[in-house]
């Protein structure tokens, strides 16, 4: 990649051609590695906000839109700093040619990582404009006060941003050693006009009127349709291939075979379906794809009996032979993202004279990664490839790889015309990078008063971040010496004991694995919270008070969530009749997000089903930038909790993936919906924590604990079916 300062970069791309942009006088640049993991620092927001001639604020949206509406929240922060209304900000989704590389959108990091850099950028801009206003008004800077969309003096002489900006390009530079200006968004004493107020997400109208915002909606003249065959696992190699029927299909333009890649290009979508159906392929696998193989690989008890697991995450005066009060094994199923939008991409190659030799339209969590991989795949330079980022119809961690894009690129190159690839739902399941299966052994011992003395938690799971499909092969052995940051999520319990040991091991499973909402967080916390609940039941203690006591004052924010959710749940009376139960669970996601959930369930003997009636959630979100959007994320996590606890199971058998559509992979529907009661605990002095994958850690164990309360049945594996009870 060319070394280029942010300033030069933005000048080169024309972004600073007119109006006022803030930029730091730094020549820092960054080179992306897989996946793109450049997170912003205090200076990175600088070039993302601009006041254009006419006084309108333009903002590059640094995040990929996929439902969390992080950009809208970030725009609220910018609006707060500039004393304007968020509705007046014009958001621009940058292509990879417009901005320097930025991190993949993932891990609920958007608000945490981007809010401050953007606030600094906007505040710097505001103060630069204040200097200009002072000159214009003939007043000292201190006498120039804020006004909506500009400034005023105490005798009400006004100057708007429009008055201060002309159509010459001006860059306000701030040396990195200069003090950060006052940040209104982070000033807890301040009455805010934007931050903390519910605002409609920008662009919402398009979503209810059928606007063209997703990849497959992009109109393209002369487009052809294509698709490739997806293997059951990416390490599979073609054993036998018969494409003899393809030529008979009307509308086939070409068949493309390159190593283990085989695809077709046709004139219509129907012809693609027919042509793909004519391709007979069998695969050579490195490992058998069966349930038995997965169970064998994650056999936690066998591995713990044989010695220490690979990674020791916590070790405090460990005793192997305590008098265990609870000694349970929990098994968590494989799950997939099942985003509502099946992936699509459009690729177009251009002649040598064009701005870009290769253009790709796609919805991805990692646009810069796509640019890099497409360049590697085609031999074009990165600057010859441009990614036009489209809205994602759901991400959840599943959209950060070069795959549907690869299909489109290879097929378009073969025919020399633009090609649209629309994956089918079956392709989505076949190519899933799933949340791994895992097995957890938890042993807890307690003293006469019931306080914890020993905690021994070991688990084995498939890889998460270090899944072989996510990193280049040569990097794997090196990377795997350290802890997989996805695998260790949620492993350390908030409970205190004098003797504590946590250990884990991550293994290769025969299916493709990856990053799923909350990574290992939901799996580990399901085990921890189920085990603690069981201990409370055995001791005849009220579980909330018991858990708070066992935190021993170390986790005040979490304890507060738990106490709050108990209050919320008490607003609704649980019927006395048999079959009704209430359960609680709490968890810390990523060390910074605190949440507690309660569940009311009815185990319905007559209709042979488990109904979730009511879910309450208390979540400490740090600064609540947009309370309504946070609430929406919590609702989403609670719905996913029902799927994980009761419905979803990714099936494999006979060396392939058996789940193929929503008829055999069940996700929550309207009829599964309980009533919800959500309390957002706002901490205006603390940085926003993100909410995209937090409540999912506490929802499933709350449901499992409610089932225990209702029926006496302790769920040891997910999903819980009525027949298990």
């Amino acid at each position, binding site marked *: 990649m060319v070394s280029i300062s942010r300033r030069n970069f933005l000048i080169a791309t024309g972004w600073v051609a007119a109006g006022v942009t803030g930029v730091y006088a730094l020549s820092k640049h960054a080179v992306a590695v897989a996946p793109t993991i450049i997170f912003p620092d205090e200076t990175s927001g600088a070039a993302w906000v601009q006041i254009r001639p006419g006084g309108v604020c333009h903002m590059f949206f640094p995040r990929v839109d996929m439902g969390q509406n992080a950009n809208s929240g970030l725009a609220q922060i910018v609006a707060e700093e500039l004393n304007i209304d968020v509705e007046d900000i014009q958001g621009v989704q940058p292509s990879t040619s417009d901005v320097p590389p930025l991190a993949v959108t993932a891990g609920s990091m958007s608000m945490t990582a981007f809010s401050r850099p953007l606030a600094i950028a906007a505040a710097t801009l505001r103060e630069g404009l204040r200097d200009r206003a002072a000159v214009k008004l003939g007043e000292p800077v201190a006498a120039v006060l804020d006004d909506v969309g500009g400034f005023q003096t105490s005798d009400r002489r006004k100057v708007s941003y429009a008055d201060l900006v002309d159509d010459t390009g001006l860059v306000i530079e701030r040396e990195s050693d200069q003090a950060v200006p006052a940040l209104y968004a982070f000033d807890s004493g301040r009455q805010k006009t934007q931050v903390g107020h519910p605002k409609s997400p920008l662009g919402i109208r398009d979503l209810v009127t059928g606007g063209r915002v997703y990849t497959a909606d992009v109109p393209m003249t002369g487009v052809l349709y294509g698709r490739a065959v997806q293997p059951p696992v990416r390490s599979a190699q073609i054993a036998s291939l018969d494409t003899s029927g393809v030529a008979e299909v009307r509308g086939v333009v070409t068949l493309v075979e390159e190593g283990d890649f085989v695809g077709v290009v046709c004139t219509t979508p129907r012809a693609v379906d027919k042509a793909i159906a004519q391709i007979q392929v069998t695969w050579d696998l490195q490992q058998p794809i069966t349930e038995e193989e997965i169970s064998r690989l994650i056999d936690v008890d066998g591995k713990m009996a044989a010695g220490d697991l690979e990674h020791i995450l916590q070790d405090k005066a460990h005793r192997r032979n305590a008098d265990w009060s609870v000694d349970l094994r929990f098994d968590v199923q494989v799950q997939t993202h099942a985003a509502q*939008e099946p992936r699509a991409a459009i690729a177009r190659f251009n002649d040598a004279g064009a701005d870009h030799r290769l253009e790709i339209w796609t919805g991805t969590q990692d646009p810069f990664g796509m640019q890099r991989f497409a360049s590697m795949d085609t031999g074009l330079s990165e600057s010859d490839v441009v990614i036009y980022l489209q*809205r994602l*119809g759901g991400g959840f961690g599943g959209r950060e790889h070069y795959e549907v894009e690869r299909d489109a690129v290879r097929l378009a190159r073969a025919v020399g015309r633009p090609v649209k690839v629309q994956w*089918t739902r079956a392709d989505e399941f076949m190519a899933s990078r799933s949340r791994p299966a895992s097995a957890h052994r938890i042993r807890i011992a307690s003293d006469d008063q019931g306080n914890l003395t020993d905690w021994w938690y070991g688990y084995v799971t498939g890889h998460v971040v270090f899944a072989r499909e996510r990193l280049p092969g040569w990097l794997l052995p090196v990377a795997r010496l350290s802890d997989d940051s996805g695998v260790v999520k949620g492993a350390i319990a908030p409970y205190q004991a004098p003797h504590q040991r946590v250990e884990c091991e991550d293994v290769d499973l025969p299916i493709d694995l990856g990053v799923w909402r909350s990574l290992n967080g939901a799996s580990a916390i399901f085990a921890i919270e189920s085990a603690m609940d069981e201990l409370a039941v055995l001791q005849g203690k009220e579980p909330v008070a018991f858990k708070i006591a066992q935190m021993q004052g170390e986790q005040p924010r979490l304890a507060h969530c738990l106490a709050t959710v108990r209050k919320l749940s008490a607003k609704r009376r649980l019927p006395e009749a048999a079959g009704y139960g209430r359960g609680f669970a709490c968890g810390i996601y990523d060390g910074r997000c605190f949440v507690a959930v309660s569940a009311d369930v009815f185990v319905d003997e007559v209709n042979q089903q488990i109904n979730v009636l009511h879910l309450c959630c208390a979540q400490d979100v740090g600064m609540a930038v947009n309370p309504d959007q946070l609430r929406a994320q919590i609702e989403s996590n609670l719905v996913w909790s029902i799927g994980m606890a009761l419905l979803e199971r990714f099936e494999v058998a006979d060396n392939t993936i058996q789940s193929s559509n929503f008829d055999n992979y069940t996700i929550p529907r309207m009829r599964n919906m309980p009533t919800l009661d959500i309390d957002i605990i706002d901490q205006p002095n603390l940085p926003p924590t993100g909410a995209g994958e937090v409540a999912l850690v506490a929802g499933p164990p709350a449901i499992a604990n409610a089932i225990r309360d209702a029926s006496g049945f302790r769920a040891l594996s997910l999903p819980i079916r009525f027949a298990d009870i």
Partner: protein
Amino acid sequence: MKVRVNEVEHHVAADWRDETLLTVLREHLGLAGTKFSCGIGQCGACVVHVDGSAINSCLISIADVENKNILTIEGLASGDGSLHPLQQAWIDENVPQCGFCQSGQIMQALALVGDKPDPTDADIDSVMSGNLCRCGTYDRIRKSIKKAALVMRSTS
């Protein structure tokens, strides 16, 4: 062959006559608001109205709707741009997250409120359970349907 979509007559070219209604709408007529998600009638992303009834457009062949009246999400707002009460309620309640399922949800809800001007929770459960939303916006969909139904009752 002709179809009427949102009161406009469209000609369907010969190459496209063995496609589904969904594919023709999206790829041939340029009406991309209706979505493809499962292709087998399991998710409701593709719901449109044919002669007033909600159907999954992924399951029906274009040949079967010749000369019928089709209404898609693009035809729901009035010509002057003012939104249908359902669309407005969807915005007021901030329903969409990723948004992908919402065209189908709104078109299905349109059928529901047409049938039951004052829908109960049980009505909503039964009529809306064919429409998946992976983002989990169901609670807001329920609220918006009730809100829009109220507006529609009071204006009719």
